[in-house]
């Protein structure tokens, strides 16, 4: 009985979430879900292997290869399906690390105030002024190009954004009546966090994480394009790297499948994240919360 109730709850939350999105938001979510499906069912969707040659090199689409083959004879459709795994893994890992880490720092800054807040705020401002991508390139060049290292580097330079947003929200929260009352009754920090702060901050954190995931995927593609990606991962960025570094790629027709499809995959995924993110922003804008109509 209890189990059935839980499923109903989950289903109804999902349905109300779906309904609350606008058309563009729905498109965004659909793109993400499709990518996830592609990633999960990659072994079933892709007939050929993404790691070994399965045919002649540089075949155009057709003939058993949905999107053609690359310069090693590896099927491109298979690479894209398996690359979806890397992209989603990367996006979510970065979003989690930078989002949670940044949120914690933001909460610390907003809740405790005083010198802690001033120091953190200055640090955030400094990191936001500096050009992010050159610093990421600089650090990635030294810390090496495994996927995990890239995730850490990306998280290290993307946490100030969420930290700032969360801090702003915490500041406006701590003036709320019920928070002050709870504190005066002796509520511990963990209690406040669990019962009051996190539920209020969750929408902003969600929106931040969507944007972070998108940024992480683009940044990894950019790093891979420059040659700083993880060569063992079959990410879409690495496909673009190999394609653009192929001598004469622009004077031959090969770019029309080898370069085009990974580019299309990344662009569609990023647009999906952007559409969803915009919609979430719209529906979780704290300014709208106090409007009468809904």
């Amino acid at each position: 009985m209890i189990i059935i109730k839980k499923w109903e709850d989950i289903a109804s939350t999902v349905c109300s979430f779906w309904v609350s999105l606008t058309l563009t938001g729905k498109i965004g979510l659909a793109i993400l879900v499709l990518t996830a499906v592609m990633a999960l069912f990659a072994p079933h969707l892709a007939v050929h292997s993404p790691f070994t040659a399965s045919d002649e090199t540089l075949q155009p689409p057709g003939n058993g290869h949905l999107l053609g083959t690359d310069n090693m004879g590896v099927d491109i459709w298979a690479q894209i399906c398996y690359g979806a795994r890397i992209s989603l893994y990367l996006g979510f890992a970065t979003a989690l690390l930078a989002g949670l880490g940044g949120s914690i720092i933001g909460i610390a800054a907003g809740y405790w105030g005083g010198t802690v807040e001033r120091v953190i705020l200055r640090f955030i401002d400094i990191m936001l002024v500096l050009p992010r991508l050159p610093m990421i390139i600089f650090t990635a060049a030294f810390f090496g190009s495994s996927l995990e290292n890239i995730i850490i580097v990306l998280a290290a330079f993307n946490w100030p954004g969420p930290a700032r947003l969360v801090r702003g929200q915490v500041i406006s929260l701590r003036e709320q009546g019920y928070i002050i009352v709870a504190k005066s009754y002796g509520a511990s920090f963990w209690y406040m966090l669990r019962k009051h702060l996190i539920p209020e901050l969750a929408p902003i954190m969600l929106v931040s994480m969507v944007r972070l995931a998108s940024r992480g995927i683009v940044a990894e593609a950019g790093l891979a394009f420059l040659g700083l990606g993880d060569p063992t991962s079959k990410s879409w960025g690495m496909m673009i790297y190999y394609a653009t570094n192929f001598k004469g790629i622009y004077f031959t027709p090969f770019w029309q499948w080898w370069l085009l499809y990974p580019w299309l995959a990344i662009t569609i995924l990023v647009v999906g994240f952007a559409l969803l993110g915009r919609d979430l922003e719209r529906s979780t804008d704290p300014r709208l919360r106090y409007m009468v109509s809904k």
Partner: protein
Amino acid sequence: MFATRRFRLLDYLVTIVVILTINFMVPRLMPGDPFLLVSAEAGEEFAVLSERQREYFMSYYGLDKPLHQQYLIYLQSLARGDLGHSIQYREEVTVIIARALPWTIFLVLSATLLSTLLGIIFAVISAWHRGKTRDNLLLVGLVSISEIPGFLLGLSFLLLFSVYLGWFPLAGASTPFVRFDSLLGKLIDIIHYAFLPIIVLTLSRVSGSYLLVRNTLILVLTKDYMKTARAKGLPERVIRYRHAMRNALLPLVNRIALQFGGLVGGAVLIENVFAYPGLGSLMAGAALARDYNLLQGILLVLAVGVLLANFMADLVSRRLDPRIR
């Protein structure tokens, strides 16, 4: 929405110290032997050094001194304008950067100017026809284009306009081995090569200024003093540009300052897409070759450049802000 971030001089100095420290620490935090990279020949992975050779090199590069001493030496050489020696190009880093810097400045300044101008123009059109088709089209169009990351947009433009249509060149900043008779000819050539990178950089940033100015204009247009101005019989153009635009100017300058770091980052990637010989391409090459003197130099120049731009924008916004007079 964000409070205008006013940096005092102290903040700028602190930021510069942070950059210098990062610049100094990152190569030294690198896992593995620094000499793996410094002395390896091209194509080889390792250089095997005997103990005595290691000691010699360590003392030669000053890597055996305590860390704070190395830091002081680093600062001293910076003060002298010595950014070190590039292993890739076997030249002074300052010379190499000086060759590439003008191209990057050209791209970045043109894109900033163009994106702000276009943003203003489109915003004026949008605000004046707000709610109608023109506004909606512009809104959806510009916002969608800005959602696509700059480097992906750049790749698509390269493929469409340079590769498929052949209208623009594939690489470089000007036609090699050609001497032009007139300055105009040379200028046209340079613009021909820089056209796509600048357009892509502009498009990826234009929605920022567009939305800002559009929203400010829409807000201002409904205010009472606009009705007074019209009632006074002022010509439409005066109303538009003098009253309404004034209000948008301050947030616009702030926005340019905030965005500048991102613009420079975008320029780095786009230069690589179009093989434009600015600091971006230089940086990518240095990263691949692990030429860390050059990398440090480029990062320093880029960071200081962004800080300078922010500083100037701060000065300008201080003068413009009627609250601080």
